Protein backbone atom coordinates (compact mmCIF):
# COMPACT_ATOMS: atom_id res chain seq x y z
CA UNK A 1 0.00 0.00 0.00
CA UNK A 2 1.28 3.46 -0.79
CA UNK A 3 -1.30 5.80 0.73
CA UNK A 4 -1.74 3.95 3.99
CA UNK A 5 1.05 2.69 6.18
CA UNK A 6 0.24 0.08 8.83
CA UNK A 7 1.49 1.22 12.22
CA UNK A 8 0.29 -1.22 14.89
CA UNK A 9 0.22 -5.00 14.81
CA UNK A 10 -3.45 -5.23 13.90
CA UNK A 11 -2.86 -2.97 10.90
CA UNK A 12 0.01 -5.18 9.74
CA UNK A 13 -2.23 -8.23 10.03
CA UNK A 14 -4.99 -6.55 8.06
CA UNK A 15 -2.55 -5.59 5.34
CA UNK A 16 -1.28 -9.16 5.10
CA UNK A 17 -4.73 -10.70 5.21
CA UNK A 18 -6.01 -8.53 2.37
CA UNK A 19 -3.05 -8.85 0.02
CA UNK A 20 -4.62 -9.07 -3.42
CA UNK A 21 -1.84 -11.02 -5.17
CA UNK A 22 -2.75 -14.25 -6.99
CA UNK A 23 -6.43 -13.72 -6.39
CA UNK A 24 -7.60 -14.34 -9.94
CA UNK A 25 -11.25 -13.93 -9.15
CA UNK A 26 -10.64 -10.63 -7.42
CA UNK A 27 -8.71 -9.43 -10.45
CA UNK A 28 -11.67 -10.15 -12.71
CA UNK A 29 -13.98 -8.00 -10.68
CA UNK A 30 -14.67 -4.39 -11.39
CA UNK A 31 -14.25 -1.98 -8.54
CA UNK A 32 -12.87 -2.72 -5.15
CA UNK A 33 -14.58 -5.27 -3.00
CA UNK A 34 -13.69 -6.97 0.22
CA UNK A 35 -16.49 -9.46 0.46
CA UNK A 36 -15.00 -12.93 0.88
CA UNK A 37 -15.19 -14.93 -2.32
CA UNK A 38 -17.71 -17.74 -2.33
CA UNK A 39 -17.97 -19.64 -5.59
CA UNK A 40 -21.53 -19.45 -6.86
CA UNK A 41 -23.03 -22.88 -7.04
CA UNK A 42 -20.24 -24.34 -5.03
CA UNK A 43 -20.87 -27.81 -3.70
CA UNK A 44 -19.97 -26.48 -0.29
CA UNK A 45 -22.98 -24.20 -0.17
CA UNK A 46 -26.62 -25.01 -0.68
CA UNK A 47 -27.49 -23.47 -4.02
CA UNK A 48 -30.52 -25.03 -5.70
CA UNK A 49 -30.82 -24.43 -9.40
CA UNK A 50 -27.17 -24.91 -10.08
CA UNK A 51 -26.60 -28.63 -10.52
CA UNK A 52 -29.97 -29.36 -12.12
CA UNK A 53 -32.98 -27.36 -13.23
CA UNK A 54 -36.50 -28.04 -12.05
CA UNK A 55 -36.98 -30.77 -14.61
CA UNK A 56 -33.80 -32.53 -13.59
CA UNK A 57 -32.01 -31.45 -16.76
CA UNK A 58 -29.41 -28.76 -17.38
CA UNK A 59 -31.24 -26.56 -19.90
CA UNK A 60 -32.87 -24.19 -17.43
CA UNK A 61 -30.12 -23.59 -14.91
CA UNK A 62 -29.88 -20.32 -13.04
CA UNK A 63 -26.25 -20.10 -14.08
CA UNK A 64 -24.68 -21.36 -17.30
CA UNK A 65 -22.50 -24.40 -16.77
CA UNK A 66 -19.58 -22.35 -18.07
CA UNK A 67 -19.75 -20.48 -14.78
CA UNK A 68 -17.68 -23.14 -13.09
CA UNK A 69 -14.77 -22.57 -15.44
CA UNK A 70 -14.23 -19.14 -14.00
CA UNK A 71 -15.29 -19.87 -10.49
CA UNK A 72 -14.43 -23.40 -9.51
CA UNK A 73 -11.57 -23.94 -11.96
CA UNK A 74 -9.83 -20.56 -11.67
CA UNK A 75 -10.78 -19.21 -8.30
CA UNK A 76 -11.33 -22.24 -6.15
CA UNK A 77 -9.44 -25.34 -5.20
CA UNK A 78 -12.33 -27.45 -6.49
CA UNK A 79 -11.29 -29.42 -9.57
CA UNK A 80 -13.64 -28.45 -12.37
CA UNK A 81 -13.14 -30.53 -15.47
CA UNK A 82 -11.49 -28.48 -18.21
CA UNK A 83 -9.48 -29.32 -21.34
CA UNK A 84 -5.73 -29.75 -21.13
CA UNK A 85 -4.62 -26.26 -22.07
CA UNK A 86 -0.93 -27.09 -22.02
CA UNK A 87 -0.84 -29.84 -24.64
CA UNK A 88 -4.10 -30.64 -26.29
CA UNK A 89 -6.10 -27.40 -26.48
CA UNK A 90 -3.82 -24.39 -25.95
CA UNK A 91 -6.18 -22.05 -27.80
CA UNK A 92 -9.30 -23.15 -26.01
CA UNK A 93 -9.99 -19.71 -24.49
CA UNK A 94 -8.45 -17.68 -27.32
CA UNK A 95 -11.77 -16.20 -28.35
CA UNK A 96 -12.75 -15.38 -24.84
CA UNK A 97 -11.13 -12.04 -24.12
CA UNK A 98 -13.49 -10.91 -21.39
CA UNK A 99 -15.23 -13.70 -19.55
CA UNK A 100 -18.29 -11.65 -18.68
CA UNK A 101 -19.00 -10.94 -22.38
CA UNK A 102 -17.39 -13.78 -24.26
CA UNK A 103 -18.08 -16.88 -22.18
CA UNK A 104 -20.34 -18.27 -24.91
CA UNK A 105 -17.37 -18.43 -27.26
CA UNK A 106 -15.69 -21.09 -25.21
CA UNK A 107 -16.49 -24.22 -27.15
CA UNK A 108 -16.67 -27.87 -26.39
CA UNK A 109 -13.55 -29.91 -27.08
CA UNK A 110 -13.71 -33.34 -28.63
CA UNK A 111 -10.63 -35.50 -28.34
Amino acid at each position, binding site marked *: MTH*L*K*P*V*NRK*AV*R*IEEATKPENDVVALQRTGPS*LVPHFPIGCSLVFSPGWEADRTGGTAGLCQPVERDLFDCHIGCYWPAQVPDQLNHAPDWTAKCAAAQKDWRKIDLIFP
Partner: protein
Amino acid sequence: MMWGAREHHRFEAAGQAFVYLVPSAAIFAVDEAADSVLRRLAERPQTHDELTAALGGDLGPTLTELVRVQAIAEVERPAPPTPRIIPLAPFPLTTMVLNVTNQCNLSCTYCYEYGEDKIVDTENGKQPKFMSEETARESVDFMLREAGDNKTAHVTFFGGETLLNFPVLKKTIEYARRRGAEAGKAVDFSLTTNATLLKPEVIEFLAEQNVGVTISIDGPREVQDKFRVFNNGAGSYEIVAPKIKELLRRHRTRPIGARVTLTSANLDVKRIYRHLTEEIGFWEVGFAPVTTAPGRTHAIGEDGYDRMLDQFRDLAQEFLEFSVANRHHGFSNVKETLEELHKGVSKAFPCGAGLGLLGVATDGDVALCHRFAGSDAHKVGTVATGIDRDAQRQFLERHHIANKTDCSVCWARPLCSGGCYHEAHTRYGDTSHANLHYCEWIRGWTEVCLKVYGELSVRNPAFLAQFDREEMGEKVS
Protein backbone atom coordinates in the same frame (compact mmCIF):
# COMPACT_ATOMS: atom_id res chain seq x y z
CA MET B 1 -21.59 4.40 -6.56
CA MET B 2 -21.56 6.36 -3.28
CA TRP B 3 -18.63 5.97 -0.93
CA GLY B 4 -18.99 6.56 2.78
CA ALA B 5 -16.58 6.51 5.68
CA ARG B 6 -16.76 3.59 8.09
CA GLU B 7 -16.26 4.16 11.81
CA HIS B 8 -12.84 5.57 12.58
CA HIS B 9 -11.08 8.15 14.69
CA ARG B 10 -8.61 10.48 12.99
CA PHE B 11 -5.74 11.90 14.99
CA GLU B 12 -2.52 13.75 14.34
CA ALA B 13 0.90 13.07 15.77
CA ALA B 14 4.43 14.03 14.76
CA GLY B 15 3.00 16.33 12.10
CA GLN B 16 1.20 13.48 10.40
CA ALA B 17 -2.35 12.16 10.11
CA PHE B 18 -3.34 8.74 11.44
CA VAL B 19 -6.56 6.76 11.62
CA TYR B 20 -7.70 4.42 14.34
CA LEU B 21 -10.18 2.07 12.69
CA VAL B 22 -13.23 0.81 14.54
CA PRO B 23 -13.91 -1.96 15.36
CA SER B 24 -10.69 -3.51 14.03
CA ALA B 25 -8.48 -1.25 16.21
CA ALA B 26 -5.93 -1.04 13.40
CA ILE B 27 -3.82 2.11 13.25
CA PHE B 28 -2.68 3.38 9.86
CA ALA B 29 -0.64 6.44 8.98
CA VAL B 30 -2.44 8.09 6.06
CA ASP B 31 -0.89 10.32 3.41
CA GLU B 32 -2.44 13.56 2.27
CA ALA B 33 -4.57 11.98 -0.46
CA ALA B 34 -6.05 9.30 1.80
CA ASP B 35 -6.51 11.80 4.60
CA SER B 36 -8.39 14.24 2.33
CA VAL B 37 -10.65 11.50 0.97
CA LEU B 38 -11.42 10.19 4.44
CA ARG B 39 -12.16 13.63 5.82
CA ARG B 40 -14.53 14.46 3.00
CA LEU B 41 -16.30 11.14 3.32
CA ALA B 42 -16.59 11.60 7.06
CA GLU B 43 -18.67 14.71 6.33
CA ARG B 44 -21.05 12.98 3.93
CA PRO B 45 -21.06 10.12 1.42
CA GLN B 46 -19.82 11.06 -2.06
CA THR B 47 -19.23 9.51 -5.46
CA HIS B 48 -15.84 8.93 -7.00
CA ASP B 49 -16.54 11.79 -9.43
CA GLU B 50 -17.46 14.20 -6.66
CA LEU B 51 -14.25 13.35 -4.84
CA THR B 52 -12.17 13.76 -7.98
CA ALA B 53 -13.81 17.11 -8.73
CA ALA B 54 -12.99 18.33 -5.24
CA LEU B 55 -9.56 16.85 -4.75
CA GLY B 56 -8.25 16.27 -8.27
CA GLY B 57 -5.81 13.59 -9.39
CA ASP B 58 -6.34 9.88 -9.75
CA LEU B 59 -8.08 8.79 -6.56
CA GLY B 60 -8.63 5.17 -7.69
CA PRO B 61 -5.64 3.66 -5.87
CA THR B 62 -6.37 5.69 -2.73
CA LEU B 63 -9.98 4.52 -2.67
CA THR B 64 -8.91 0.93 -3.24
CA GLU B 65 -6.58 1.02 -0.27
CA LEU B 66 -9.12 2.68 2.00
CA VAL B 67 -11.69 0.08 1.00
CA ARG B 68 -9.19 -2.70 1.54
CA VAL B 69 -8.71 -1.79 5.21
CA GLN B 70 -12.44 -1.01 5.58
CA ALA B 71 -11.90 2.65 6.38
CA ILE B 72 -14.52 3.39 3.70
CA ALA B 73 -17.15 1.34 1.91
CA GLU B 74 -20.06 1.64 -0.48
CA VAL B 75 -22.86 3.28 1.45
CA GLU B 76 -25.34 0.65 0.39
CA ARG B 77 -23.12 -1.88 2.08
CA PRO B 78 -23.53 -1.18 5.79
CA ALA B 79 -20.91 -2.35 8.25
CA PRO B 80 -21.65 -5.89 9.38
CA PRO B 81 -23.08 -6.18 12.92
CA THR B 82 -20.65 -6.95 15.72
CA PRO B 83 -20.19 -10.71 15.72
CA ARG B 84 -21.44 -12.06 19.01
CA ILE B 85 -18.83 -14.70 19.59
CA ILE B 86 -18.67 -16.18 23.06
CA PRO B 87 -15.28 -17.73 23.77
CA LEU B 88 -15.34 -21.49 23.80
CA ALA B 89 -15.35 -23.15 27.20
CA PRO B 90 -13.21 -24.20 28.92
CA PHE B 91 -11.39 -20.90 28.57
CA PRO B 92 -7.97 -21.20 30.24
CA LEU B 93 -7.57 -19.38 33.52
CA THR B 94 -4.63 -16.97 33.42
CA THR B 95 -4.96 -15.14 36.71
CA MET B 96 -6.53 -16.24 39.97
CA VAL B 97 -7.05 -13.52 42.54
CA LEU B 98 -7.08 -15.03 45.98
CA ASN B 99 -8.82 -12.96 48.66
CA VAL B 100 -6.91 -14.45 51.56
CA THR B 101 -8.83 -12.26 54.00
CA ASN B 102 -11.73 -9.86 53.88
CA GLN B 103 -10.47 -7.96 56.91
CA CYS B 104 -8.40 -4.80 56.87
CA ASN B 105 -6.44 -2.85 59.43
CA LEU B 106 -7.16 0.42 57.63
CA SER B 107 -10.54 2.07 57.25
CA CYS B 108 -10.17 3.99 54.02
CA THR B 109 -13.42 5.86 53.67
CA TYR B 110 -13.72 5.28 49.91
CA CYS B 111 -13.02 1.54 50.00
CA TYR B 112 -15.21 -0.50 47.68
CA GLU B 113 -14.98 -3.44 50.02
CA TYR B 114 -15.87 -1.73 53.31
CA GLY B 115 -17.22 1.68 52.44
CA GLU B 116 -20.78 2.73 51.76
CA ASP B 117 -20.87 0.93 48.42
CA LYS B 118 -19.75 -2.50 49.56
CA ILE B 119 -21.38 -5.54 48.01
CA VAL B 120 -20.60 -8.17 50.62
CA ASP B 121 -21.12 -8.00 54.35
CA THR B 122 -17.63 -8.84 55.59
CA GLU B 123 -18.53 -8.31 59.26
CA ASN B 124 -21.57 -10.56 59.72
CA GLY B 125 -21.64 -12.37 56.39
CA LYS B 126 -21.30 -16.10 55.87
CA GLN B 127 -17.66 -16.01 54.79
CA PRO B 128 -14.86 -16.66 57.21
CA LYS B 129 -12.73 -13.58 57.81
CA PHE B 130 -9.58 -15.42 56.84
CA MET B 131 -9.04 -18.01 54.17
CA SER B 132 -7.95 -21.33 55.60
CA GLU B 133 -4.86 -23.13 54.43
CA GLU B 134 -7.05 -25.90 53.11
CA THR B 135 -9.18 -23.57 50.98
CA ALA B 136 -6.03 -21.92 49.66
CA ARG B 137 -4.64 -25.31 48.66
CA GLU B 138 -7.92 -26.23 46.98
CA SER B 139 -7.77 -22.93 45.14
CA VAL B 140 -4.30 -23.69 43.83
CA ASP B 141 -5.45 -27.09 42.60
CA PHE B 142 -8.46 -25.43 41.01
CA MET B 143 -6.22 -22.90 39.26
CA LEU B 144 -3.84 -25.51 37.89
CA ARG B 145 -6.79 -27.56 36.64
CA GLU B 146 -8.39 -24.58 34.95
CA ALA B 147 -5.16 -23.19 33.47
CA GLY B 148 -5.54 -25.53 30.51
CA ASP B 149 -2.51 -25.51 28.23
CA ASN B 150 -1.10 -22.28 29.67
CA LYS B 151 2.51 -22.72 30.73
CA THR B 152 2.28 -20.08 33.43
CA ALA B 153 -0.41 -19.49 36.01
CA HIS B 154 -0.60 -16.23 37.93
CA VAL B 155 -1.76 -15.98 41.51
CA THR B 156 -2.53 -12.56 42.93
CA PHE B 157 -3.05 -12.32 46.66
CA PHE B 158 -5.64 -9.79 47.63
CA GLY B 159 -7.79 -8.74 50.54
CA GLY B 160 -8.82 -7.01 52.73
CA GLU B 161 -5.28 -6.40 53.78
CA THR B 162 -3.45 -9.31 52.24
CA LEU B 163 -0.66 -9.44 54.78
CA LEU B 164 -3.09 -9.95 57.67
CA ASN B 165 -3.08 -13.55 56.49
CA PHE B 166 0.64 -13.82 55.82
CA PRO B 167 0.93 -17.37 57.27
CA VAL B 168 -1.52 -18.76 54.70
CA LEU B 169 0.02 -16.69 51.91
CA LYS B 170 3.42 -18.21 52.69
CA LYS B 171 2.12 -21.75 52.76
CA THR B 172 0.15 -21.20 49.56
CA ILE B 173 3.23 -20.08 47.66
CA GLU B 174 5.12 -23.13 48.83
CA TYR B 175 2.27 -25.46 47.90
CA ALA B 176 1.64 -23.80 44.52
CA ARG B 177 5.29 -24.04 43.53
CA ARG B 178 5.32 -27.74 44.32
CA ARG B 179 2.01 -28.51 42.62
CA GLY B 180 2.90 -26.31 39.67
CA ALA B 181 6.15 -28.17 39.15
CA GLU B 182 4.26 -31.48 39.21
CA ALA B 183 1.81 -30.14 36.64
CA GLY B 184 4.63 -28.76 34.49
CA LYS B 185 3.55 -25.16 34.98
CA ALA B 186 5.36 -22.14 36.30
CA VAL B 187 3.42 -20.20 38.90
CA ASP B 188 3.88 -16.48 39.21
CA PHE B 189 2.91 -14.60 42.38
CA SER B 190 1.98 -11.06 43.14
CA LEU B 191 0.12 -9.24 45.86
CA THR B 192 -1.45 -5.95 46.69
CA THR B 193 -0.95 -4.47 50.13
CA ASN B 194 -1.41 -1.22 52.04
CA ALA B 195 2.19 -1.59 53.28
CA THR B 196 1.32 -1.24 56.97
CA LEU B 197 2.48 -4.77 57.75
CA LEU B 198 5.66 -4.89 55.70
CA LYS B 199 7.87 -6.15 58.49
CA PRO B 200 11.51 -6.98 57.68
CA GLU B 201 10.82 -10.73 57.57
CA VAL B 202 7.89 -10.19 55.23
CA ILE B 203 9.98 -8.06 52.90
CA GLU B 204 12.72 -10.68 52.99
CA PHE B 205 10.24 -13.39 52.06
CA LEU B 206 8.69 -11.41 49.19
CA ALA B 207 12.10 -10.59 47.76
CA GLU B 208 13.36 -14.14 48.09
CA GLN B 209 10.23 -15.64 46.60
CA ASN B 210 10.18 -13.16 43.74
CA VAL B 211 6.67 -11.98 44.53
CA GLY B 212 5.44 -8.97 42.59
CA VAL B 213 4.22 -6.23 44.89
CA THR B 214 1.73 -3.44 44.30
CA ILE B 215 1.30 -0.90 47.07
CA SER B 216 -1.98 0.94 47.54
CA ILE B 217 -0.94 4.46 48.42
CA ASP B 218 -2.44 7.80 47.52
CA GLY B 219 0.56 10.13 47.63
CA PRO B 220 2.22 12.59 49.96
CA ARG B 221 1.26 12.73 53.64
CA GLU B 222 -1.69 15.12 53.48
CA VAL B 223 -3.18 13.25 50.51
CA GLN B 224 -2.62 9.78 51.93
CA ASP B 225 -3.95 10.72 55.34
CA LYS B 226 -7.16 12.15 53.99
CA PHE B 227 -8.72 8.77 53.18
CA ARG B 228 -6.22 6.08 54.02
CA VAL B 229 -6.73 6.05 57.74
CA PHE B 230 -6.77 3.62 60.65
CA ASN B 231 -9.90 2.80 62.60
CA ASN B 232 -9.31 5.74 64.94
CA GLY B 233 -8.99 8.14 62.04
CA ALA B 234 -5.24 8.48 62.26
CA GLY B 235 -3.43 8.74 58.94
CA SER B 236 -1.21 5.91 57.71
CA TYR B 237 1.52 7.83 55.88
CA GLU B 238 3.84 7.91 58.86
CA ILE B 239 3.67 4.13 59.20
CA VAL B 240 3.87 3.10 55.55
CA ALA B 241 6.48 5.46 54.07
CA PRO B 242 9.55 4.00 55.83
CA LYS B 243 8.32 0.44 55.23
CA ILE B 244 7.87 1.06 51.53
CA LYS B 245 11.34 2.56 51.30
CA GLU B 246 12.75 -0.52 52.97
CA LEU B 247 10.84 -2.78 50.59
CA LEU B 248 12.11 -0.86 47.57
CA ARG B 249 15.66 -1.08 48.91
CA ARG B 250 15.57 -4.80 49.58
CA HIS B 251 13.22 -6.17 46.89
CA ARG B 252 15.03 -5.66 43.59
CA THR B 253 13.92 -8.71 41.63
CA ARG B 254 10.71 -7.18 40.31
CA PRO B 255 9.49 -3.67 39.57
CA ILE B 256 7.33 -2.44 42.42
CA GLY B 257 4.37 -0.26 41.59
CA ALA B 258 2.12 2.12 43.42
CA ARG B 259 -1.60 2.10 42.86
CA VAL B 260 -3.30 5.41 43.56
CA THR B 261 -7.01 5.99 44.08
CA LEU B 262 -8.10 9.38 42.82
CA THR B 263 -11.03 11.14 44.45
CA SER B 264 -12.68 14.54 44.13
CA ALA B 265 -10.47 15.74 46.99
CA ASN B 266 -7.34 14.19 45.56
CA LEU B 267 -6.70 15.00 41.92
CA ASP B 268 -3.20 16.43 41.94
CA VAL B 269 -1.90 13.68 39.70
CA LYS B 270 1.43 15.24 38.82
CA ARG B 271 2.35 16.05 42.39
CA ILE B 272 1.42 12.56 43.54
CA TYR B 273 3.46 11.06 40.73
CA ARG B 274 6.52 13.14 41.62
CA HIS B 275 6.26 12.25 45.27
CA LEU B 276 5.85 8.53 44.71
CA THR B 277 8.61 8.17 42.13
CA GLU B 278 11.17 10.76 43.15
CA GLU B 279 10.75 10.91 46.92
CA ILE B 280 9.61 7.37 47.70
CA GLY B 281 11.27 5.62 44.78
CA PHE B 282 8.50 3.60 43.09
CA TRP B 283 9.32 2.19 39.68
CA GLU B 284 5.85 2.88 38.38
CA VAL B 285 2.62 4.51 39.45
CA GLY B 286 -0.88 3.67 38.24
CA PHE B 287 -3.90 5.84 38.89
CA ALA B 288 -7.55 4.84 39.07
CA PRO B 289 -10.54 7.02 39.82
CA VAL B 290 -12.42 5.89 42.91
CA THR B 291 -15.37 3.54 42.38
CA THR B 292 -18.46 4.97 44.02
CA ALA B 293 -22.15 5.48 43.68
CA PRO B 294 -22.89 8.95 42.31
CA GLY B 295 -23.36 11.71 44.85
CA ARG B 296 -20.77 10.54 47.37
CA THR B 297 -18.58 13.42 48.49
CA HIS B 298 -15.44 11.75 47.19
CA ALA B 299 -17.01 10.82 43.83
CA ILE B 300 -15.33 12.52 40.90
CA GLY B 301 -17.68 14.83 39.02
CA GLU B 302 -17.50 15.95 35.42
CA ASP B 303 -15.11 18.85 36.02
CA GLY B 304 -13.01 16.52 38.13
CA TYR B 305 -12.62 14.18 35.15
CA ASP B 306 -11.59 17.17 33.04
CA ARG B 307 -8.95 18.16 35.55
CA MET B 308 -7.74 14.61 35.76
CA LEU B 309 -7.48 14.41 31.98
CA ASP B 310 -5.42 17.62 31.80
CA GLN B 311 -2.95 16.22 34.28
CA PHE B 312 -2.86 12.79 32.68
CA ARG B 313 -2.15 14.54 29.38
CA ASP B 314 0.81 16.43 30.84
CA LEU B 315 2.20 13.31 32.43
CA ALA B 316 1.70 11.35 29.19
CA GLN B 317 3.63 14.06 27.33
CA GLU B 318 6.45 13.61 29.80
CA PHE B 319 6.25 9.85 29.30
CA LEU B 320 6.57 10.43 25.56
CA GLU B 321 9.68 12.59 25.85
CA PHE B 322 11.30 10.08 28.20
CA SER B 323 10.45 7.19 25.89
CA VAL B 324 11.81 8.96 22.83
CA ALA B 325 15.07 9.33 24.75
CA ASN B 326 14.90 5.65 25.78
CA ARG B 327 14.55 6.58 29.42
CA HIS B 328 12.20 4.85 31.83
CA HIS B 329 9.08 6.70 32.90
CA GLY B 330 6.80 5.18 35.51
CA PHE B 331 3.35 6.43 34.47
CA SER B 332 1.89 2.98 34.06
CA ASN B 333 -1.59 4.01 32.84
CA VAL B 334 -0.16 5.25 29.55
CA LYS B 335 2.07 2.24 29.16
CA GLU B 336 -0.79 -0.20 29.57
CA THR B 337 -2.92 1.62 27.03
CA LEU B 338 -0.01 1.85 24.58
CA GLU B 339 0.42 -1.90 24.81
CA GLU B 340 -3.23 -2.46 23.94
CA LEU B 341 -3.04 0.03 21.08
CA HIS B 342 0.08 -1.64 19.77
CA LYS B 343 -1.51 -5.05 19.72
CA GLY B 344 -4.69 -3.62 18.32
CA VAL B 345 -6.94 -5.27 20.85
CA SER B 346 -10.61 -4.95 20.13
CA LYS B 347 -12.45 -6.18 23.16
CA ALA B 348 -15.70 -8.08 23.29
CA PHE B 349 -15.47 -7.73 27.08
CA PRO B 350 -13.92 -4.89 29.05
CA CYS B 351 -11.59 -7.12 31.06
CA GLY B 352 -10.76 -10.73 31.76
CA ALA B 353 -13.21 -11.05 34.66
CA GLY B 354 -15.20 -14.27 34.45
CA LEU B 355 -12.97 -15.42 31.63
CA GLY B 356 -9.18 -15.56 32.10
CA LEU B 357 -9.40 -13.95 35.52
CA LEU B 358 -11.42 -15.12 38.49
CA GLY B 359 -11.61 -14.04 42.12
CA VAL B 360 -11.77 -16.49 44.99
CA ALA B 361 -13.47 -15.53 48.29
CA THR B 362 -12.22 -16.65 51.69
CA ASP B 363 -14.65 -19.60 51.66
CA GLY B 364 -13.57 -20.81 48.23
CA ASP B 365 -16.47 -19.37 46.25
CA VAL B 366 -15.36 -18.31 42.80
CA ALA B 367 -16.56 -14.92 41.56
CA LEU B 368 -16.11 -12.86 38.40
CA CYS B 369 -13.18 -11.05 39.96
CA HIS B 370 -11.79 -10.10 43.36
CA ARG B 371 -14.14 -7.13 43.59
CA PHE B 372 -17.13 -9.47 43.57
CA ALA B 373 -15.55 -12.19 45.71
CA GLY B 374 -18.10 -13.45 48.21
CA SER B 375 -21.12 -12.09 46.37
CA ASP B 376 -23.67 -14.80 45.66
CA ALA B 377 -25.14 -12.83 42.78
CA HIS B 378 -21.79 -12.85 40.98
CA LYS B 379 -20.69 -16.36 41.80
CA VAL B 380 -19.45 -18.57 38.99
CA GLY B 381 -18.51 -21.68 40.90
CA THR B 382 -16.41 -22.88 43.80
CA VAL B 383 -12.82 -24.06 43.94
CA ALA B 384 -14.00 -27.48 45.03
CA THR B 385 -16.62 -28.03 42.32
CA GLY B 386 -15.01 -25.98 39.57
CA ILE B 387 -16.39 -23.30 37.31
CA ASP B 388 -20.15 -23.27 36.82
CA ARG B 389 -20.10 -23.29 33.02
CA ASP B 390 -23.75 -22.31 32.67
CA ALA B 391 -23.37 -19.30 34.94
CA GLN B 392 -20.19 -18.33 33.14
CA ARG B 393 -21.77 -18.63 29.75
CA GLN B 394 -24.84 -16.65 30.79
CA PHE B 395 -22.62 -13.95 32.16
CA LEU B 396 -20.55 -13.74 28.97
CA GLU B 397 -23.62 -13.69 26.76
CA ARG B 398 -25.19 -10.91 28.75
CA HIS B 399 -22.07 -8.73 28.90
CA HIS B 400 -20.88 -8.98 25.30
CA ILE B 401 -20.15 -5.62 23.67
CA ALA B 402 -22.78 -6.42 21.04
CA ASN B 403 -25.41 -5.93 23.78
CA LYS B 404 -24.16 -2.51 24.78
CA THR B 405 -26.19 -0.28 22.52
CA ASP B 406 -24.72 2.84 24.09
CA CYS B 407 -21.26 1.75 23.01
CA SER B 408 -22.20 0.87 19.44
CA VAL B 409 -21.57 4.42 18.21
CA CYS B 410 -18.43 5.11 20.23
CA TRP B 411 -15.02 4.97 18.54
CA ALA B 412 -13.28 4.13 21.81
CA ARG B 413 -15.16 0.86 22.33
CA PRO B 414 -12.38 -1.46 21.09
CA LEU B 415 -10.42 -0.50 24.21
CA CYS B 416 -13.12 0.39 26.72
CA SER B 417 -15.86 -2.07 25.87
CA GLY B 418 -18.18 -0.42 28.37
CA GLY B 419 -15.79 -0.33 31.30
CA CYS B 420 -15.50 -2.05 34.66
CA TYR B 421 -18.36 -4.39 35.70
CA HIS B 422 -17.88 -3.47 39.32
CA GLU B 423 -17.94 0.25 38.59
CA ALA B 424 -21.19 -0.26 36.64
CA HIS B 425 -22.66 -2.32 39.44
CA THR B 426 -21.84 0.37 41.99
CA ARG B 427 -22.98 3.20 39.78
CA TYR B 428 -26.05 1.73 38.10
CA GLY B 429 -26.76 -1.43 40.04
CA ASP B 430 -26.16 -3.46 36.89
CA THR B 431 -22.88 -5.04 35.82
CA SER B 432 -23.95 -5.03 32.17
CA HIS B 433 -24.57 -1.27 32.07
CA ALA B 434 -22.07 0.82 30.12
CA ASN B 435 -20.21 3.24 32.39
CA LEU B 436 -21.69 6.32 30.78
CA HIS B 437 -20.45 8.71 33.46
CA TYR B 438 -16.88 8.49 32.22
CA CYS B 439 -17.30 8.21 28.42
CA GLU B 440 -15.83 11.65 27.77
CA TRP B 441 -12.91 10.85 29.99
CA ILE B 442 -12.27 7.52 28.22
CA ARG B 443 -12.39 9.10 24.79
CA GLY B 444 -10.16 11.95 25.94
CA TRP B 445 -7.65 9.57 27.44
CA THR B 446 -7.69 7.23 24.43
CA GLU B 447 -7.02 10.23 22.19
CA VAL B 448 -4.05 11.23 24.37
CA CYS B 449 -2.63 7.71 24.17
CA LEU B 450 -3.21 7.49 20.42
CA LYS B 451 -1.18 10.66 19.97
CA VAL B 452 1.62 9.32 22.14
CA TYR B 453 1.50 6.09 20.14
CA GLY B 454 1.62 7.93 16.83
CA GLU B 455 4.55 10.07 18.00
CA LEU B 456 6.46 7.02 19.19
CA SER B 457 5.80 5.17 15.94
CA VAL B 458 7.62 7.99 14.14
CA ARG B 459 10.20 9.09 16.67
CA ASN B 460 11.18 5.85 18.39
CA PRO B 461 9.51 2.77 16.89
CA ALA B 462 11.97 0.53 18.74
CA PHE B 463 10.26 1.53 21.97
CA LEU B 464 7.02 -0.05 20.80
CA ALA B 465 8.72 -3.34 19.99
CA GLN B 466 8.82 -4.12 23.74
CA PHE B 467 5.09 -4.75 23.53
CA ASP B 468 5.64 -7.69 21.22
CA ARG B 469 6.80 -9.71 24.20
CA GLU B 470 4.82 -12.53 25.78
CA GLU B 471 1.48 -11.94 27.44
CA MET B 472 1.49 -11.12 31.13
CA GLY B 473 -1.12 -11.82 33.80
CA GLU B 474 -3.83 -9.27 34.12
CA LYS B 475 -3.32 -6.30 36.44
CA VAL B 476 -5.60 -6.16 39.42
CA SER B 477 -6.82 -3.07 41.22
